[in-house]
């Protein structure tokens, strides 16, 4: 029993990683006031770029870098349209997803059905062999730890640095931030690119570590879940972690439950992660004031400097 629970927890940490990476990036973009609904498209382009990177260079690190760059490039297209040309963010983000699905399929055409070794797991001699704690805490691949470190870093950046304060100010009230003299568009550009790079990493986690292969549309809607997690987290990085683990855990839990033979139709079991997310959101949203404090007031709004 303990072994099964441990196994479930390990699987949850891994399943949550792509969601965590993409959602944390999107959170930073949204905190600066940019709503980029193109996460799914950016993840896919990241996934295929990372895969191609590893296939071509043979280096996992270069693959990861390629994925982050590709995600950032996709975000650059988005930023050019929404920040430069003031296009509507919601529609542009959705268009970016369409574009990314097509582009990734086109890029990856020759790489379908090619296997490669997954990213190495970082075993710590001695510690990895400890019962329960060993496999739970040690022996994951580098991206798992990177994701966790980035959550902490983003929290620290947003709430404990001056630049983080400026970024939040821009998302809260761009006119005021502009009046004080902050470069609103440049800050939003940076935040958007960071979001894209993180989505790219999230995609690469799928194609390099989770299921080391490339297949069209392999993110299978995880970009949308990542977007939902940002809302779920009420724009707090720590809560993204909780949300990703909750969603990943319930998703896996229902599969474990099926394996145990729970006599409930699988379709109802599969509803559980979505329902659980809604229920927890309802429970934590009741405090109206705190939600309002966290939600960036200018999210999705176009900044007209001289207006």
């Amino acid at each position, binding site marked *: 029993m303990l072994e099964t629970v441990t196994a479930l927890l390990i699987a949850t940490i891994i399943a949550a990683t792509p969601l965590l990476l993409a959602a944390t990036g999107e959170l930073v973009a949204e905190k600066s006031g940019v709503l980029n609904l193109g996460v799914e498209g950016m993840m896919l382009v990241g996934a295929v770029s990372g895969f191609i990177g590893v296939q071509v260079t043979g280096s996992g690190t270069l693959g990861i870098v390629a994925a982050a760059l590709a995600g950032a490039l996709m975000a650059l*297209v988005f930023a050019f*349209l929404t920040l430069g*040309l*003031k*296009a*509507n963010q*919601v*529609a*542009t983000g*959705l*268009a*970016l997803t*369409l*574009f*990314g*699905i*097509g*582009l990734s*399929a*086109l890029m990856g*055409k020759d790489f379908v059905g090619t296997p490669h070794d997954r990213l190495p797991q970082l075993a710590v001699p001695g510690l990895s062999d400890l019962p329960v704690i060993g496999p739970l805490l040690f022996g994951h691949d580098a991206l798992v730890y990177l994701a966790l470190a980035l959550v902490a870093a983003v929290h620290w950046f947003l709430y404990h640095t001056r630049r983080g304060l400026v970024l939040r100010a821009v998302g809260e009230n761009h006119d005021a931030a*502009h009046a004080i*003299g902050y*470069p609103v*568009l*440049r800050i939003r550009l940076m935040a958007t690119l960071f979001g894209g790079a993180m989505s790219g990493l999230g995609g690469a986690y799928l194609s390099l570590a989770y299921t080391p292969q490339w297949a*069209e549309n392999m993110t299978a809607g995880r970009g*949308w879940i990542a*977007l*939902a997690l940002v*809302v*779920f987290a009420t724009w707090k990085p720590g809560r993204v972690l909780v949300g990703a683990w909750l969603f990943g855990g319930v998703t896996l839990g229902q599969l474990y439950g099926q394996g145990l033979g729970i006599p409930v*139709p699988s*379709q*109802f079991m*599969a*509803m559980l992660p*979505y*329902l659980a*997310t*809604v229920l927890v*959101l*309802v429970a934590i*949203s*009741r405090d*109206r004031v705190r*939600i309002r404090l966290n939600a960036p007031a200018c999210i999705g709004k176009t900044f*007209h*400097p*001289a*207006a």
Partner: protein
Amino acid sequence: MWPRLVPRGEASPVMVWMTPVLAVALTLLAGTALFAALGYPPGRALHAYFVEPVSTFYGLGELAVKATPLTLTAVGLAIGFRANVWNIGAEGQLVMGAVLGGGLALAFWGEEGPWLMPAMLLAGILGGALWAAIPAFLRTRFNASEILVSLMMVYVATLFLNWLVHGPWRDPEGFNFPQSRMFGNDALMPVLFEGTRLHLGTPIAFAVVLGGWFLLARTFVGFQIKVLGLTPAAASYAGFDQRRLIWFCLLLSGGLAGLAGVIEAAGPVGQLTPAIPQGYGFTAIIVAFLGRLHPLGILLAALLIALTYIGGESAQITLQLPIAVTGVFQGMLLFFLLATDVLIRYRVRWGAPAGEAGRA
């Protein structure tokens, strides 16, 4: 020297009509480059996308069939978006509309009458509205974001439909395959022209466009919605009941998505299958914004988007252009359409900004 944007005093009425033309011109240019780069004859590819699908009477009908659910759904969404009510889950409401409306068709299978179709349409509206009532209730009562709740309920609705057609609503003569019976004749949308699939749903969509326009332009609710969207503070000073408006917007957009769902099930599909959700609920979000949240604009946008989908099929058939290229091409077209909108509110000036250089 970089170009920069200078705001116009007011929206340019010329550009409102010129920007789509410009966007299409840019798309043709970029499309030519894309197809040539991938090794396909650009002229024939563009012909396959934009001319071939609508060069037959049947094809025109198909365009309308494809644009109908998009239009219906987008009109409702646009009204909500104007009031800053973010219903992202129209896809789920569409499914539940199909489930409730289609459920009626199955319940009265073999004992139908001319009353059945109107009842199904109402049931479809009800199904979509009920599903949208969940985010409305949770938003107004518990302050839970309708973005997240409506999106999550999409997955729940899709799985529920899946269970129905795998289990209780499975066609008893269907070798246990996951689909319902074929609807009886009275439960099918009447086809308007022999030889096409153009059905009654299209005129209904037209009516909804006009109704949406009337609501926004001529009614007090429409006025309240616009005020709430532009300046929420003013809305609360004016004493508008924000909760009621949230309920109204979600029920309306949900109901229309549900209507789209039952029309799709009773129209070109003719039964309930797991393939009822085809992403119309999400595509409709793009359609709503492309149409600038205006019902008449939405009609045009829905036709354009529908054309690119059908054109993608044509391009595959006549040129064996991979479907992935269609995705890239569609993305580009949307980028151009969204980007050129800037010219309505801004003019382009070359050179350094005069007074702002020091600020940024």
